[in-house]
């Protein structure tokens, strides 16, 4: 960050005291005029977010209406809390709720440790070249679409897939179709996410591992610490802040978890296994055209998600971690 010799002769750059100093001296009208080009530049993004981000938020008032496509938001009759009363009395909603939690928990427990283990494994490889190759291969599936991932899994584990052909060839008369088995679905979901995202999530851990000082390991080894002791007390505790951060991020999005993944496989495994809160909202609102009811479920989902994120962050602060954002 050293400035070239030539520039150093000049008096302290105005940039050094820009910010605060400038702010207090100039009137807001002056600053507005000075920065009008900058503000203009944010306009296209602002307009797009206004139309496709904020207008739908306003549209959520339909959750308190008996929305009719032809009357629109302005003329549809108000329904008060009727949609929510119906929602909380709907067994389908509660099934979707518990199913979301089940799918999410199974996925979290099974997939969370994988990138950590992968990072530790990769970090222990001495050859840089080999490490690079492995990293490229394992991160690749992150860039595949969910439809793609499901297609690949179908060709491997599905009714006409490789596993099926292999088992039939080895005397299993009717192998189970793992892609359509509702009882197996939660593990399938976890498996797909592990396959797709482990490599990608590993990168953050790899960077955190690189930041741990080697002298810690050296000192521990001199003191006679075993591999496991070093891994536990140096490696894993070094990774802890990142783990907490990712766990919070994960928990914050627990209720909106896996929408595309469920929707793609909804027909194959059936609503019993694949119905989640987002699917419930979509199925009622869009597919069955019951807009207000779907929006009510959507609003519930949005509000609880925000609460969840804030709560998770609070918990992180209590544990002394920096969390998603700072206070």
């Amino acid at each position, binding site marked *: 960050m050293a400035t070239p010799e030539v*520039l150093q002769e000049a008096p302290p*750059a105005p940039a050094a005291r820009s910010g*605060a100093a400038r702010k207090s001296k100039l009137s807001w009208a002056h*600053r*507005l005029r*000075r*920065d009008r*080009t*900058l503000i*203009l*530049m*944010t306009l*296209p*993004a*602002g307009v797009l*977010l206004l139309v*496709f*981000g*904020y*207008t739908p938020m306003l*549209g959520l008032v339909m959750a308190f209406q008996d929305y009719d496509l032809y009357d629109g938001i302005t003329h549809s009759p108000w329904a008060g809390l009727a949609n929510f009363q119906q929602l909380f009395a709907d067994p389908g909603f509660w099934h979707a709720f518990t199913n979301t939690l089940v799918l999410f928990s199974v996925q979290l427990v099974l997939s969370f440790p994988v990138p950590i283990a992968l990072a530790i*494994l990769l970090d*222990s*490889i001495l050859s840089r070249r080999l490490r690079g190759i*492995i990293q*490229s291969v*394992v*991160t*690749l599936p992150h*860039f595949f*679409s969910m*439809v*793609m991932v*499901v*297609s*690949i899994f179908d*060709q*491997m584990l599905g009714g006409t897939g*490789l596993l099926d*052909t292999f088992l*039939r060839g080895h005397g299993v008369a009717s192998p189970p179709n793992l892609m359509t088995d509702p009882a197996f679905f939660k593990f399938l979901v976890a498996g797909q996410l592990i*396959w797709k995202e482990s*490599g990608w999530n590993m990168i953050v851990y790899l960077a955190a591992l690189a930041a741990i000082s*080697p002298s810690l*390991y*050296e000192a521990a*080894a*001199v003191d006679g610490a075993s591999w496991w002791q070093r891994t536990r007390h140096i490696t894993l505790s070094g990774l802890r802040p*990142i783990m907490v951060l990712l766990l919070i991020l994960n928990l914050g999005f627990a209720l909106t978890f896996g929408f*595309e993944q469920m*929707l*793609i496989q909804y027909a194959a495994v059936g609503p019993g296994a694949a119905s989640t809160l987002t699917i419930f909202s979509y199925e009622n*609102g*869009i597919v069955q055209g019951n*807009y207000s009811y*779907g*929006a009510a479920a*959507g609003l519930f989902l949005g509000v609880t998600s*925000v609460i969840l994120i804030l709560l998770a962050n609070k918990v992180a602060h209590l544990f002394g971690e920096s969390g*998603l954002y700072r206070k």
Partner: protein
Amino acid sequence: MAATTAAAPTAVKARRRDPRRPVWQEQPKATTQAAKSGTIVVILLVIAFPLYSIVLTSLSDQTSVNIAGGMVVWPHGLTFSAYKLIAAGGVVGRALMISLLVTAVGTALSMLVTILASYGLSRTGSFGHRTILWFMMLTMFFSGGVIPLFLVVSALGGFDQYWALIAPSAVSVFNIIVMRAFFMNIGSDMIESARIDGAGEWRILWRIVLPTSRAVTAVIALFYAVTYWNSWFNILLFMPSDSVKWPLQMVLYTYITQGNPMPGAGTTTIGGFVGNQQIAPLSIQMAVVTLTVVPVLIVYPFVQKHFTKGVLLGAIKG
């Protein structure tokens, strides 16, 4: 001298120590090494093998598909007829062109909007930048959900229109935050002196900021491109039944994941003949899967070089 000769025999007996191994680290046992290598091979196979089998099946003729009884693992007869059939026109070829077009236009628009917004917000102390940033970031934490969005886009006449696949997802606030962070790191002396020389904001952005941040711009463009290429749900939402307009992901979903029969007119029949050679339906399906993944594979090495930085920055600033 005497010490080294005395130590030599034991050193020969022990396995050669990798010079890259840190001094404090003990040499792992042979069994540990073997287990580790085995694990690595299994991990690589779990990812590479399905892709290998899919590409191979798309290149196999009817006889090898019959011999394999489905997905092909050992190559027998190789042929490009599935791809020739697709190139001859019909559903898949058209979908491929549409996907490329939507991706290109969408990425260009997203980049334009993102670069402008990132630069517009990158000056600390500029009027209203904090407010505008908050306005944008709020949409990351709370959204109106699918149903109001669907109604808004429909009300704007976006149903069955291509712009509906682009505009609602054109801005990624996350990408703006990442790019803005990079722009903020550009030496402010350079920008200040350009301003003293009379350069306006547009000129500074075009002549100084963009040329010094080519890497970020490239990575974010590629992220946008991959997102557009992979997007599927917005097609289902805004273009559910007009199959003539479908991009590739929707074709993949409808005809392969859901197994619906492809429209059977002319050359678009699933299975069929090129010349007098019969093509297995499975080969054509796998050719579609392959075509969906090939652009990602082409772009991947370029993103891969940079994305460690991007992910890290995201983790810190996100």
